[in-house]
């Protein structure tokens, strides 16, 4: 393993997005992350055991098991190993507790009551490994009256105040196209665990990290809260507009090959950028009194946006974005997900890399969005693991179990892969 966390190990019970992405980031940073999964209740992001294969996988010979070919799972579990253990079975729990003795950190994103039900609450875990770091990502945190109220990204987004801020001017609140609070929680939990590792290294003391997705998301729109706290105002939904700068928006570009939508994002944050935009457009905006000063442009933003829309709509998105960028204007094409996978800059920087998955095949994936000059992480990272792919390997390596002993766990249904018998 390489990367700044080489030499550390996590035994994790993460699932879905927030927890899985947190532990995946740690794995891509060089930690040995062992995902422990329960076949009877598989990671929801693996999908149903009987779910149909995605269309582009149907002709791939190795793509046989839907639970190993889920895009959701395979996208947020890079850099990890996976074993299966039934924690409801005494033998599975015994193995798990022995694994914890080899862990620097554990992470999970169950409801707060679950770990206690397993006998694995933080204090109980400390009895097994005194300096363990446990990160718990839950909807509303481990105490307070909503502690055991369930939630996911799509419900935390409204309950954290985020949805009230996202939307078109005058329109209803929206949720993001994906469940953005999961991302916020995943990145923050990764940061918290790294912080706790440093403290553990210096003092020998582990700790408990209590991440409430509601709080993490609310902290992410903290200045909107401060606006309320200092002025009594609820910030309105602003679309793509900015409090200070205009123009600041997403505008139509000429359709590609005459069909389909294309958009360009464009903003001016200084007079130099505004003059550069005016020069490129050559439509007399620099002489238009409505747009003379930043305050004028903000006051006449509807007219300004209308003028820009009329101009951009006749231009090729990528050519215009390049010209604007070269002129120093803040601009970018609005890429769709397939274009992101093919983006030359993300590929040049090795953030989008080809990852060979044993069942789903070879696909460009977004890997670690971090670069280190000395402790360079492994690129491409290990692909997302098959369910139970590393059970024999990990139990032999960490618990010194023989192949026969592991086979016995499989025969008993405590481990294995795929739908339970």
């Amino acid at each position, binding site marked *: 393993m390489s990367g*700044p966390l080489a030499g550390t190990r996590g035994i994790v019970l993460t699932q879905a997005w927030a927890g899985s992405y947190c532990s995946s980031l740690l794995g891509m940073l060089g930690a040995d992350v062992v995902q422990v999964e329960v076949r009877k209740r598989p990671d929801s992001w693996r*999908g*149903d055991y009987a779910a149909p294969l995605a269309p582009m996988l149907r002709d791939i010979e190795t793509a046989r098991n839907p639970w190993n070919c889920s895009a959701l799972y*395979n996208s947020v579990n890079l850099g990890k190993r996976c074993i299966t253990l039934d924690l409801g079975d005494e033998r599975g729990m015994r193995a798990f507790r022995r694994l914890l003795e080899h862990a620097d950190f554990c992470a999970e994103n169950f409801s707060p009551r679950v770990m206690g039900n397993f006998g694995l609450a933080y204090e109980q875990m400390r009895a097994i490994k005194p300096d363990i770091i446990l990160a718990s990502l839950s909807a509303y945190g481990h105490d*307070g*009256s909503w502690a055991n109220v*369930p939630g*996911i990204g*799509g*419900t935390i*987004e*409204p309950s954290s*105040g*985020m*949805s*009230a801020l996202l939307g078109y001017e005058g329109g*209803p*609140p*929206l*949720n993001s*196209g*994906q469940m*953005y609070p999961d991302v916020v929680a995943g*990145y*923050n939990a990764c940061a918290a665990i790294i912080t*706790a590792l*440093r403290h553990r*290294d210096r003092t020998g*003391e582990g700790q408990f990290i*209590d*991440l*409430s997705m*509601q*709080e993490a998301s609310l902290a992410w729109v*903290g*200045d*909107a*809260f401060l*606006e309320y706290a200092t*002025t*009594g*105002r*609820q910030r309105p939904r602003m679309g793509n507009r900015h409090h200070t700068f205009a123009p600041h928006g*997403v505008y139509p570009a000429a359709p590609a090959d005459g069909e389909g939508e294309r*958009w360009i*994002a464009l*903003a001016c944050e200084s007079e130099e950028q505004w003059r550069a935009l005016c020069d490129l457009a050559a439509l007399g905006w620099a002489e238009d009194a409505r747009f003379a000063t930043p305050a004028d442009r903000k006051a006449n933003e509807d007219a300004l946006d209308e003028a820009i829309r009329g101009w951009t709509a006749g231009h090729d998105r990528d050519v215009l974005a390049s010209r604007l960028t070269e002129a120093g204007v803040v601009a*970018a094409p*609005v*890429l*769709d*997900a397939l274009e992101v*996978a093919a983006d030359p800059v993300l590929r*040049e920087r090795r953030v989008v890399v080809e990852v060979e998955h044993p069942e789903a095949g070879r696909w460009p*994936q*977004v890997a670690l969005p*971090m670069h*280190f000059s*000395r*402790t360079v992480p492994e690129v491409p990272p290990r692909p997302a693991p098959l369910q139970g792919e590393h059970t024999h390997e990990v139990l032999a390596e960490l618990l010194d179990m023989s192949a026969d002993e592991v086979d016995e766990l499989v025969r008993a249904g405590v481990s294995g892969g795929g739908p339970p018998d």
Partner: protein
Amino acid sequence: MTSSATNHAGPRALGDVRVVDISYSAAGAWTSRLLADAGADVILVEPSEGHPLRRLAPFTEDGTSIPAMNLLANKRAVSLDLDAPHSRRSALDLAKSADIVISSHTPSRLKAWGMTYAALARPSLVMCHVTPHGMTGALAEAPGNDLTAAARSGWASINGTTDREPLKPAGWAASYCAGVVAYAGAVAALRWRDAHPDEGQEVDIAEVEVMAGAFAPAVLGSQYRGVPNGRRDPVADGLGGPVEVADGYFALTLSRAHFWRDAMNVLGLTDLAEDERYGVSWYRQQHKEEYTARVLEAMRGWKKMDLFEELAVRRVVAGPALTMEELHGIEHLRERGFWRRSADQPDGPDYPGPAYQMSATPQTLDRRTPRSGEHTLDVMRTVLGMSDGQMLTLMEQGAVGHGYPESTEEQS
């Protein structure tokens, strides 16, 4: 429980760390705010006209920038103009005294200033760059912001509705996400240096890449399906986000069989609850048109907190769309001590608490947002060891900005 009671005394995760922040961006400011909250002594180097964030709306009635109030809190501020050679010399000395330097500047700008990692020439230094597009590659010198990060990362392509233009996420999404990733990278590099003295390094975080990382499920899912994820159809995806209820908006995310069954029973749609086909998520997703209109109609008869409580009892995931005022009144957040005030401004506004609570090394908010250059003289004296005479000379040369000794300044 009262609010604003969460400044704990105790060990600090980064209490031994000095950070010099020469960044001018929201992402850089959030990186160093997180480092400060974890206990680092963060020295913010701002130009003589003030940090660019101080000019960003919205403002309080006394003209204070609210984004700056949040992003610059918990730091000491020195006024040093990096474009002026005399002033820059002091900034270089400060940077060389640091464990971590945070920068948001392009490679060419750092080179022109003589502030590249190589020029700082301290083997133990961690220098963390947090920029729109990263320090290498075709876009390293290109300007960017939260809007363009949302565009290039793909996020805008799926935000909003099909009848309108793509939307960036609300607020400073790319800046905050890049900020916490930069924080994580800086602390990881610091931890490495702790164990390997003189093995500092550069950490390079690009806002667009952090947002692309957050877009990974859509990138792979779109390839597996052969078509890119798109924005929501406001009619066909009627349950895809908050929907209208009697007193606002409410999100019902029906991702599991029992969520569906129990929610339909609460809404009085017992025939839908009992139809086993809808217990399977992929089937439910593919047959939305069969039930969406009825569910929406039933929800309109409920008040959002009543429906939330009713569903919470049944452990069904659901979320009322709350405003900031409503959130400030939620007892749960008070019970957890989420709101907090700066330790040096107990009559000041409540701030949101940290994104996570750490049992052994809690984050604290010790300092209110500094005035521009407020700690210049203090830092020059205590960090760079300057005498009063040396500082007077620098001030006469215009090399340091309008900092005032803290003891002579009124606290606002």
